[in-house]
């Protein structure tokens, strides 16, 4: 119930195309769903996040779509650029004891944007 399933494992997109990464969760107590971007040798960087009271959130070229009934959420990268080439992780957290907000992570998607 604590798992977050992410797909695809890897993705190749042409410059200017749309990158779509999907995640699914089981635990209905999760109430916060972030996406992290990680470049090789660096720590994960918070990209965008959503709470289940909205179905979509957009920040620049990055959009999260959230389907509460299906327990799925996805990241869309519009006009993908070579600089977007990185590993993307979805994650989820819920309100645990003491306001501990441990993140449960997906396995990651390696995105390559061809010039």
């Amino acid at each position: 119930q604590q798992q977050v399933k992410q797909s695809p494992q890897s993705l190749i997109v042409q410059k200017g195309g749309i990158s779509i990464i999907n995640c699914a969760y089981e635990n209905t107590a999760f109430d916060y769903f972030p996406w992290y971007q990680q470049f090789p040798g660096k720590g994960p960087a918070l990209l965008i996040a959503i709470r289940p009271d909205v179905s979509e959130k957009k920040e620049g070229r990055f959009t999260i779509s959230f389907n509460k009934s299906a327990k799925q959420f996805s990241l869309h990268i519009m006009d993908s650029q070579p600089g977007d080439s990185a590993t993307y992780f979805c994650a989820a957290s819920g309100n645990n004891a003491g306001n501990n907000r441990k993140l449960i992570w997906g396995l990651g998607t390696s995105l390559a944007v061809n010039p």
Partner: protein
Amino acid sequence: EPEVTQTPSHQVTQMGQEVILRCVPISNHLYFYWYRQILGQKVEFLVSFYNNEISEKSEIFDDQFSVERPDGSNFTLKIRSTKLEDSAMYFCASSGGRGAVLSYNEQFFGPGTRLTVL
């Protein structure tokens, strides 16, 4: 812009030795975390820390692991007797600045310490 810092960037140690990984969280944050990432695998939660005590720890965080906030700025992870399988990237994260309710959700990560156990 405030950031989480970690030292050292790379630590090589012999099996059975003790290591201490250091982190300086963002200064006004209240919640602190350690995660690890074995090469090519997903990020795994180790421990969370709030109000000078552990809030939650994972199955990985056994008696060989400990955390400490020795002063107002540092947050350390100690592995008492390292094993080969402890080789991984260790990330420190912090969240929960005083203010907006959502702020404690947003975890900011350091650059990591690569631990290699020989």
